[in-house]
């Protein structure tokens, strides 16, 4: 298993200015680049390939949509090194209109966890306000069996998108850290695009 999952804290930096497509970098708590991804624009079906660095020579993770239709789509997470599917995330389309909500699924598509925006009130403020209020940073929690396993917190920065990923103590017993990172990747790539 790769060493990039040995950390408990990560942060993601997304390039906001890119002519076509988007890209993001994932760093560990010591500012070392551990993962990089670049997506092409105008792709019908989301297929996010995550590499160990910008040379894109060593693929680590694949996050692949099951359908072209984005509303309520499920995304499978596969470890590129072992070729094994780790699980999947399914976006709850209707619920996400008011509050971003995802389900974490096991290999047989049974729900095992929930990834959702921090507060319903703040979610509404972000959606239906303009100016500074709409820039209130988002936070998400990934819960397994009602226990908080991962916290995703966006930093307040109108110029550069940055998100901290914190694996709570004992979370490794609840979920594979690669799934925690895949959740962050989806929040940046899919939710970020919708925002």
């Amino acid at each position, binding site marked *: 298993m790769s060493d990039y999952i040995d950390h408990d804290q990560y942060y993601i930096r997304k390039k906001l200015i890119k002519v076509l497509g988007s890209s993001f970098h994932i760093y560990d708590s010591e500012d070392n680049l551990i993962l990089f991804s670049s997506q092409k624009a105008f792709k019908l079906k989301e297929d996010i390939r995550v590499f160990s660095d910008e040379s894109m020579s060593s693929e680590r993770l694949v996050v692949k949509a099951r*359908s*072209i*239709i984005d*509303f309520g789509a499920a995304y499978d997470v596969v470890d590129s090194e072992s070729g*094994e*599917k780790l699980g999947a995330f399914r976006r709850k389309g209707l619920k996400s209109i008011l509050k971003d909500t995802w389900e974490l699924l096991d*290999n047989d*598509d049974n729900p095992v966890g929930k990834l959702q925006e921090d507060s319903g009130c703040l979610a509404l403020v972000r959606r239906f306000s303009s100016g500074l209020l709409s820039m209130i940073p988002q936070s998400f929690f990934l819960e397994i069996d009602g226990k908080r396993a991962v916290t995703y917190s966006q930093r307040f920065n109108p110029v550069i998108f940055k998100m901290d990923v914190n694996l709570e103590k004992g979370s490794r017993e609840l979920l594979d850290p690669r799934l925690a990172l895949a959740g962050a990747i989806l929040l940046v790539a899919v939710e970020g695009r919708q925002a």
Partner: protein
Amino acid sequence: MAELEVVCDCGHRFNVPGSLRGGMSNCPSCGKAADVPGGPEKLFWLVLGFWILLAMVVLVPSAGYLFYTGHTLGGWGVVVFGCLLVIAIVLSM
């Protein structure tokens, strides 16, 4: 939902729940993720195809009529086509 049969690259055949249509599932034999056939793409192309067909049915005769009568309303055709295309894309999302 009915089960689907998956054929892994290693040659092993196995069944998965229908909800995995268009996704991936681990092969019980080799442990690697195999593609599950299907997906709702057909619906997407059906809706898009319908709207493109409708746009053509509306636009081609109207463009021909405008050309024949010498009207300079060709710009409206572009607007109508654009609107239909936007509706098609929105409906397909």
